[in-house]
C-alpha cells in the first residue's frame, strides 16, 4: 500500500509538520511559514495514491496551514470578521497542541527504544521443564479430539472482524468535499479569476471554509485550477484552467471521492 510507504518516512501529518518546522533546527523561529506550507502541500501531492480516509488528517492540517499562510500574507485586515479571526487562532492552537503531543510521544518512543536496547543485552533463560519431569507433567492433550483440533483451526483462521475505524469525523467532510468540488467546478469557469477569500466568503461555518480549501487543493492537484500569488502579501488567486465541460468533470469527481 502506498500508505505504508509514506508512513515509513513520516508517520503522520504532525510528524511531517514537526520535521518541516525543525528541519533547520538551529533557529526554530526563523523557519519561513510559506516554505513549510509549500513543503507540506508538496509532500501531500506525492501521496496521490493515498485514499481520502488516510489523507484526511493530512489535508485538514494542510488546510489550517494554508489559511495561516494566507492570513499572514494579507496586509491590513481591518475588514476581517472577529469570529473568523478567533476561530483561526483556535485552529492554530489546536495544531500546536497536537504537534507538542506528537513530539512528546516521539521522544517517549525513543526512551522506550533505549530501555529495550539496554534490556536486550541480557537474554532470558528459556530452557523450561527438564525431560526428567515430563513424565510428571499433566497430559495437555488428554481429552482433545481431532475434531476439536479442526474446530480450533477454524477459529484461528476465520477472518477476524474488520476493525471499526471511527469515520464519524470524516464522513460529513467527505460528502462535503465532493459537494464543494461539484459546486466549484460549476462556479469557477463563470467567475473568472477570483480569490480564495471570495470563494470562502459565503461559507457559513469553519468546516465549510476548510472543505473549500480541501476542494481547491484537490482541484489544483488535478490541474483544473491555478492557484497563484502575484506577489508577496498578495491575495491567493484562484483561476479555472480546466476547460469547457464542467458537468462531466463534476461527475467524475464525485465518483472519485466516494469510491
Amino acid at each position: 500500500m502506498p500508505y505504508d510507504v509514506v508512513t515509513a518516512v513520516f508517520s503522520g501529518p504532525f510528524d511531517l509538520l514537526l520535521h518541516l518546522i525543525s528541519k533547520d533546527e538551529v533557529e526554530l523561529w526563523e523557519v519561513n511559514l510559506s516554505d513549510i506550507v509549500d513543503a507540506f502541500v508538496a509532500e501531500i501531492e506525492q501521496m496521490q495514491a493515498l485514499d481520502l480516509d488516510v489523507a484526511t488528517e493530512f489535508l485538514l492540517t494542510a488546510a489550517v496551514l494554508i489559511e495561516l499562510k494566507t492570513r499572514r500574507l494579507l496586509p491590513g485586515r481591518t475588514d476581517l470578521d472577529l469570529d473568523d479571526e478567533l476561530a483561526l487562532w483556535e485552529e492554530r492552537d489546536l495544531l500546536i497542541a497536537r504537534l507538542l503531543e506528537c513530539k512528546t510521544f516521539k521522544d517517549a518512543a525513543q526512551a522506550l527504544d533505549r530501555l529495550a536496547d539496554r534490556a536486550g543485552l541480557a537474554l532470558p533463560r528459556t530452557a523450561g521443564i527438564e525431560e526428567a519431569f515430563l513424565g510428571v507433567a499433566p497430559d495437555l492433550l488428554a481429552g482433545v479430539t481431532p475434531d476439536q483440533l479442526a474446530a480450533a483451526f477454524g477459529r484461528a483462521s476465520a477472518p477476524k472482524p474488520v476493525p471499526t475505524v471511527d469515520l464519524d469525523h470524516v464522513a460529513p467532510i467527505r460528502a462535503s468535499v465532493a459537494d464543494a468540488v461539484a459546486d466549484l467546478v460549476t462556479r469557477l469557469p463563470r467567475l473568472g479569476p477570483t480569490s480564495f477569500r471570495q470563494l470562502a466568503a459565503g461559507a457559513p461555518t469553519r468546516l465549510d471554509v476548510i472543505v473549500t480549501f480541501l476542494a481547491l487543493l484537490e482541484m489544483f492537484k488535478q490541474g483544473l485550477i491555478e492557484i497563484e500569488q502575484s506577489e508577496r502579501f498578495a491575495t491567493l488567486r484562484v483561476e479555472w484552467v480546466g476547460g469547457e465541460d464542467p458537468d462531466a468533470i463534476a461527475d467524475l469527481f464525485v465518483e472519485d471521492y466516494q469510491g
Partner: protein
Amino acid sequence: MSNEFRRAFEALLMVADEPIPVSLCAQLLEISQTAVDELAESLMADYEAADRGFVLRRVAGGYRLYSHPDMAAYVERFVLEGQTARLSAAALETLAIVAYKQPISRGQIAEVRGVNVDSTLRTLAIRGYVAEIGRDPGPGQAVLFGTTPMFLEKLGLNDVSELPPLADFVPGPEVMAGLENSLLATPADAAEAAPAET
C-alpha cells in the same frame, strides 16, 4: 533465610521459561510473598558478589534468570534466533502511546498520530508488545489496547509504573515558543517576532 528455600527457588528458576509470578513462588515454596522478595534480593546480591555470568531479575511481576548484560557479546554469537528485528519509528511511537495511555482504543491512538494505525497495531500485536485488553463500555464498544507482560520483559520493567514519566518528554517552553512563532497567523506578529524572515 533458609538454605532450603533458596535452593528450591533456584531450582524453580532453572526450569521456568517465563517470569515466575511472585504469588506462584510463594505458593510453591510455602512462604509469604514478602519472604519471596527477600529471598530474591539476597540471591541477586549473592550472584553479584560472586561475579556470576547471570543475573536474577524481577520483570513483569515475576522472577527470571538472565545472562549477564556484560556477556552480551558472547551470548549474541550463540543465540541467533530470537534476535527480533527493530520496530519502525511509527511502531515505536504507537507503542509509546499505548504504553502511556492504556487502555486506549484504535481511534484514540489514530487521533494522536493523525493517521490510521490498524496495520501498526497488528504488527505490535504479532510482535507481542500489545494486546486487546478489553472493550470500551460506551457506545460502539471499541476494542481497548494495552501493553503485554512481554512488553515489560522486553523493556526490563516489572510494571508499567516503572516507565519513565511522560512528563519528562513534554517539550520545554522554547519548543512551544518556536512552534508558535513558526505558525504565526498575522503579518504584524510575524514582522515583530521573525525579523530575519525575508
